[in-house]
């Protein structure tokens, strides 16, 4: 008879179901185009003539941190992060994961895994290829790989939480990415501390030596911060899910 379902088993099944729902062709092509766009730009910047190698590395790092990390990464993570649980709550399929003898933590955990797993290829691959196309040295390529992968993990957790906290998660997410990280964060150091992008840029700075916007800590600190943000976001999401009124 139905006992309580194991945490791992229920997380895996939630992950599989929600991943399937996120894989809608419209989202994949639309956000895939965003990645292609960043590669086109990187290709043109990479092939352009530059006065000096230092200036070229500066320009290349600029493209990665100002275009990929500012627009491509957060937008893709936002659409999939919010969509993971947000879609299920809005269209009424969340009920098939709720009226079940399983710990709701696994629903949040499964959703986060699904959002991360689908966002990673769409972000990290174009980012790495952009870095290659910019041909500004292998440090930038490695930095882009590490920074974007870790950032996706943290962003996805935050946006899964946002998807459960509010029905206007997409708008709130955009406000955070564009206004907070874009403007407020650069005004004061407290703001910078609160912007995830700052930690991604820090990893790039620590690996390429190029000063980037909002960069303020060593790579190891950034990794720890990403980890903490992820765990806290997931716990908040689980707490909210437990008190949620599901249609």
């Amino acid at each position, binding site marked *: 008879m139905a006992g309580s379902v194991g945490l791992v088993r229920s997380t895996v099944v939630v992950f599989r179901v929600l991943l399937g729902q996120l894989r809608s062709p419209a989202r994949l092509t639309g956000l895939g185009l965003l990645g292609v766009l960043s590669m086109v730009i990187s290709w043109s910047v990479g092939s352009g003539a530059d006065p000096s190698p230092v200036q070229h590395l500066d320009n290349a790092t600029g493209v990665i941190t100002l275009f990929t990390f500012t627009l491509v990464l957060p937008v893709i993570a936002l659409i999939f992060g919010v969509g993971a649980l947000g879609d299920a709550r809005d269209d*009424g399929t969340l*009920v*098939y994961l*709720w009226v*079940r*003898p399983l710990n709701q933590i696994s629903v949040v955990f499964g959703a986060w895994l699904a959002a991360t797993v689908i966002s990673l290829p769409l972000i990290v691959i174009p980012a790495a290829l952009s870095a290659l196309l910019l041909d500004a040295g292998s440090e930038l390529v490695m930095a882009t790989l590490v920074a974007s992968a870790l950032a996706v993990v943290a962003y996805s957790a935050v946006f899964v939480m946002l998807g459960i906290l509010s029905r206007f998660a997409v708008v709130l997410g955009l406000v955070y990415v564009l206004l907070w990280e874009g403007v407020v964060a650069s005004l004061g150091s407290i703001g910078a501390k609160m912007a995830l992008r700052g930690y991604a840029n820090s990893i790039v700075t620590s690996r390429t030596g190029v000063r980037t916007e909002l960069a303020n800590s060593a790579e190891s600190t950034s990794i720890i911060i990403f980890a903490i943000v992820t765990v806290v976001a997931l716990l908040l999401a689980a707490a909210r899910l437990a008190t949620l*009124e599901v249609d």
Partner: protein
Amino acid sequence: MADSSLPPPPPPPAPPVGQPADHVPPPPSADSRIETPLVGVYGVTKAFGDVVAVSDVSFTVGPGITALLGPNGAGKSTLFRMLCGLAAPSQGTVQILGKDARRDTAVRGRIGLVPQQDALFDRLSAQAFVEVAAITHGLDRPRERAAEVLGVVDLDPGERKPVGAYSKGMRQRVKLAAALVNDPDVIIADEPLNGLDPVQRKRMIALFRELGESGKCVLVSSHVLDEVARLGSDILVIAQGRLAATGNFHDLRALMDDRPHRIHIATNDPRALGAELLRRAIADGVRVIEDGVEFDTTDIEAFGLAIAPVARELDVHLNGLVPLDDDLESVFRYLVER
């Protein structure tokens, strides 16, 4: 047995006649405590802001099929959501098998829910969708169990087509399969037969009756009263968020003594039969109409027993006898109109 932390539930009103007397009481399942009803709702109120969807409703439901009826917006769906723990009551307590599904996730494994909304995980096939339900219920052989229960609702487990491409009737049966996969003790179905074609409708009604007779508690909401009458005769009527009536609708009709029963009789000598029944005070009012006579009577039982002997005595043909307001449709109208 009531959980101490919970406010002791007020003594539930006399549980509705779970089953008409003639139903063989369900086989006592291993852990059924006779005094705990399968579904208990005690003094429940639910408000969204200042809209009161359900106000101070109390009832209990035992094994068998019980139909939840009520006009649109009367609070049926809200009540169902509270029973499954999807929403918390503003006041009062809701218990399934003695536990609150909102806090005790284990009891959710013994509930089978057919939600009203049409949305499914559209990219999965029917087999995959029901398998997900089986796994999330912690069943050990999900694939076989899913295939088995899909067979029960006449769906082909081998069908690869995603459920997103299914017709409304087929999606409804997928939802039903997902609700039965864990062999639940309590089945809560919000308009489960919506969109089914006549053939499927008939089969699903038979399936629900079987589930009810096997001792499960089947709580069904529906707007199609003919369908409800075929499912069974126990009803719970909700109107404007208040409980209007519970019990067998024939008994409910009998309780409505301020509304005499109207019966139409087709016979070759309406006046003679009418006069005789009036004389014997079996009927209180008579209207002769072209093809027969309409009677009003307050004692439906006496009327039913006397009509045949009187007709035989007068040697008139009893070509037809049709109660005009004894069916569920009229009972429902009288209850909701008030």
